[in-house]
């Protein structure tokens, strides 16, 4: 089954000087699929800045490596499993977790944390059929991630969930993993002639054949046979066995098996070690008899790793594998040259340069800007205190804003005893590291804004993810990205992709942040059309001292400050979405200078110990930010909205605009904080009110309102629990 285009077939024939065999075509078309080859995106994403003093260059292939001091390195990687999760949410999401864990393991690092970013159709919308399917997807995706992550003992420490009508009968499941290692233990992927190639772990079966080709076209029908079957127990054994083997120095080179199975793994590792490989497929341990060589080499069966070891260390390796009862087969050896030689029962059935297999001819896709989707106008909205009160509770109850407790309580987020800030407590998750420092990590996305304006939408995500790191006290170190779009063959979609890439380059160059890992996923479409553009951005940051760890939790009798200006930027806002105005308004624009100035100011305040609590102001706007801080701290607020620096044309815009680069903080050292902020030229900030602990009511005052908007702790909390309420109302879908 060849998936090659006419042009690619011609290119291959020319390179070979002959007609390729059916087997060769199978191998090449797996590797040349969009999923494995990045043929549409490679030229563009090569331009991402990728250097900084923390990045360890030239080592990582599967995941990036960062030097975090005292001999420790961090590995980070992101993957998605969108197509499989949309047809088989349990298996699809679980194997997504397994895949990203093995990417970290390939480097010789111990996985210490998982995060996920999920996108679904609204759970409770007018279209009952789509909502029901969405609840089914959410339930099973959550269970899939939980059952896998919990079993392997890697905590799922954080994530991000978005519900939008752009995801009918579909979902996006992104999983990121972080690993830690001592620098000297990292696998360098150096191998010598006659080294032995082991295939370790799960047996190879007919599951997931053509999975990467499946993921490289639109979803049509429900091709469940292309979805792999998860076995977290084997993965757990694989993790422990591989790390023990790394520790004993018996791994020369290593690679996980993912999309494209052995065909991609063998060709890519052969290129990485700059040597040839000779492998006999008949030696692979299989699940069933009668598998053809093509089926064996293309199978995407899970929980498998390729380990290359020396002749002398072979016995140590197999001893460790036996200790863990792991199956393995000695499938071949490293040879002179740079060819991948595939045999079956002794007969050579393929002998091609690895480079030819690995490097698909790249494609320049057309781009055409679409007509503007968003109408840049402001909408009239009644603004009596009671209207504003209702709107605030409605936005709080929107599952995009509401607590994700129903999801994260199903994930073991504490195993490893290093989770300092857990899901639901702060703007990013914070982990204790072996070197005495703390790691802040977060994923973010916003398909609503990106759909209206992919450039500024992507900018907003970048700004938000960095603010989330800063709001827990971290200094952003690096960015990872996952760009999820529809078909790149559609010139409008490819235009949007390019805009998103341009935003990442511009933001990261300005902020001097390296992009240390990424992934592109195209063809996210079903019979109803493409998804909204959904880049997901992750960031990690370091916090040097535990005193600098910040939480969004109002204490009592503290002064409340806002940093940053609020503008009429309602495009893609949760307020417009909740009140039926989606598609209107201007997508917020990140002013890079403001963004950096505000970030630096906040980090300085933290280090000078003048901040009691801190929260980034983003999805849902100012009103939601205040409510969250009140709820988490169990204290109330009195805020004078007139004091907020703004250029808004209405009170609701002031309350709900999602203008980036803003922070809300509380302090009991208002004088010092005032002095420090006043000294920064160009910084917009103001003291806007006080926190209180008397009674249970919070107040928002405005000169144009004849009475304040009054919110009680109970109203806020009840609305905020809405996601769980929806999911428990219909326990089975």
């Amino acid at each position, binding site marked *: 089954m060849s998936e090659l285009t006419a042009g690619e077939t011609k290119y291959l024939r020319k390179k070979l000087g002959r007609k390729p065999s059916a087997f060769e075509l199978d191998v090449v078309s797996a590797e040349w699929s969009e999923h494995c080859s990045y043929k549409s995106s490679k030229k563009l994403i090569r331009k991402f800045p990728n250097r900084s003093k923390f990045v360890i260059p030239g080592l990582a292939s599967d995941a990036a490596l960062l030097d975090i001091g005292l001999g420790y390195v961090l590995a980070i990687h992101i993957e998605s499993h969108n197509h499989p999760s949309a047809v088989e949410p349990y298996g699809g999401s679980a194997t997504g977790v397994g895949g990203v864990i093995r990417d970290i393991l390939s480097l010789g690092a111990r996985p210490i944390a998982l995060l996920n970013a999920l996108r679904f159709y609204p759970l409770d919308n007018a279209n009952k059929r789509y909502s029901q399917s969405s609840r089914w997807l959410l339930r099973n995706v959550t269970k899939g991630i939980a059952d896998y992550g919990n079993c392997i*003992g890697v905590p799922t420490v954080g994530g991000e969930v978005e519900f939008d009508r752009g995801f009918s009968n579909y979902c996006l499941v992104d999983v990121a993993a972080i690993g830690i290692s001592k620098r000297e233990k990292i696998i360098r992927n150096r191998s010598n002639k006659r080294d032995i190639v082991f295939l370790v772990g799960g047996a190879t079966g007919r599951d997931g054949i053509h999975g990467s080709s499946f993921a490289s076209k639109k979803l049509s029908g429900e091709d469940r046979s292309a979805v792999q079957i998860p076995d977290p127990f084997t993965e757990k054994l694989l993790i422990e066995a591989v790390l023990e083997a790394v520790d004993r120095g018996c791994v020369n080179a290593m690679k996980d098996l993912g999309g494209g199975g052995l065909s991609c793994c063998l060709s890519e590792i052969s290129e990485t070690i700059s040597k040839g490989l000779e492998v006999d497929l008949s030696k692979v341990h299989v699940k069933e008899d009668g598998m053809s060589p093509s089926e064996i080499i293309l199978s995407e069966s899970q929980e498998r790793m390729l380990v290359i070891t020396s002749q002398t260390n072979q016995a140590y390796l197999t001893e460790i594998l036996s200790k863990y009862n792991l199956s393995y087969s000695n499938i071949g050896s490293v040879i002179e040259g740079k060819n991948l030689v595939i045999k079956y029962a002794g007969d050579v059935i393929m002998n091609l340069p690895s480079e030819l297999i690995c490097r698909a001819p790249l494609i320049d896709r057309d781009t055409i800007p679409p007509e503007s989707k968003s109408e840049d106008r402001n909408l009239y909205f009644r603004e009596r205190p009671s209207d504003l009160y209702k709107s605030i509770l409605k936005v709080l109850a929107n599952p995009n804003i509401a607590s994700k407790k129903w999801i994260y*309580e199903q994930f073991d987020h504490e195993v490893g005893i290093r989770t300092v800030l857990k899901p639901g*407590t702060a703007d990013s998750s914070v982990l204790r590291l072996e070197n005495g420092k703390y790691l802040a990590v977060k994923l973010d996305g916003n398909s609503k804004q990106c759909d209206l304006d992919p450039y500024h939408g992507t900018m907003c995500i970048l700004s938000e993810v960095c603010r989330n790191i800063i709001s827990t006290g971290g200094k952003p170190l690096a960015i990872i990205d996952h760009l999820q779009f529809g078909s790149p063959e559609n010139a409008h979609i490819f235009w949007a992709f390019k805009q998103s890439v341009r935003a990442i380059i511009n933001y990261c160059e300005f902020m001097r942040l390296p992009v240390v890992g990424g992934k592109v996923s195209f063809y996210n479409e079903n019979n109803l059309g493409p998804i909204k553009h959904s880049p997901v951005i992750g960031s990690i940051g370091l916090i040097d001292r535990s005193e600098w760890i910040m939480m969004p939790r109002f204490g009592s009798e503290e002064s409340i400050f806002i940093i940053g200006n609020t503008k009429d930027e309602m495009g893609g806002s949760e307020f417009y979405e909740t009140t039926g105005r989606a598609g209107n308004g201007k997508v917020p624009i990140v002013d890079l200078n403001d963004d950096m100035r505000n970030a630096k100011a906040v980090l300085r305040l933290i280090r000078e110990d003048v901040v009691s609590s801190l929260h980034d102001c983003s999805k849902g706007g100012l009103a939601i930010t205040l409510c969250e801080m009140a709820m988490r701290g169990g204290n109330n607020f009195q805020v004078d909205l007139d004091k907020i620096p703004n250029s808004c044309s209405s009170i609701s815009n002031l309350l709900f605009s999602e203008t980036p680069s803003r922070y809300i903080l509380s302090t009991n050292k208002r004088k010092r904080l005032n002095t420090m902020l006043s000294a920064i030229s160009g910084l917009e900030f103001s003291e806007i009110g006080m926190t209180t602990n008397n009674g249970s009511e919070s107040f928002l005052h405005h000169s144009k309102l004849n009475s304040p908007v009054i919110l009680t702790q109970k109203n806020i909390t009840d609305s905020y629990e809405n996601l769980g309420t929806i999911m428990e109302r219909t326990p089975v879908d």
Partner: protein
Amino acid sequence: MSRVGILVFPGSNCERDVFTVLSKFSGLEPELVWHTKNDLRGYDAFIIPGGFTYGDSLRAGAIAAHSPVIRELKKISEENLPILGICNGFQILVESSLLPGALTVNSSHKFVCKSARLVVKNNSTPFTTMFKKDESISIPVAHGQGRYVIDNRAYRKLERNNQIVIRYAQNDINGSMNNVAAVCNEQGNVMGMMPHPERAVWIQMDQDIRPEGSGVFESLRNHLLWH
């Protein structure tokens, strides 16, 4: 120094956490013991940590409960050595009949990971002497099969013998019979608990979790010191 053996099975995943925590308590010397080891002599106490031994195949703890090392452990339990099972360790202890009752799927049918408020009902076991009777503590839980069930007559016997060591102080954890969170055997030397004390030892940023799990390990240390 008291040697504490931490039994490790394929699929255990809290053994390093327990090891790290125990090594912070002076007087305790933790050691990871791989499940194929058939001689358990020379240890002063054992802990079976949490995890998913054998991937929870059949039932949580069922396969590990039939391994040779548990047969050895049963012999040792008769010598009054303290044995603590945490989470999956508790499941293994009930599956191997070292403790009465059974642990089955949570009534929510979902895995639950959160901080749980608890009440210590028996403070005379080797793992609870540092607590006051009826003391309220918070320790996180993380399990999918933690609902404790037992027949009524056996339950009454547990109550009579003071074998219900810890109860949940809230009803929304897993649907355990009368909120049972930890039980011990008749002699009191074997205890199983669903909450993870090793996860509540360091002060976390989260105010909901105080270092109240330490009491379990401090109690064990004191017990080993004086016995």
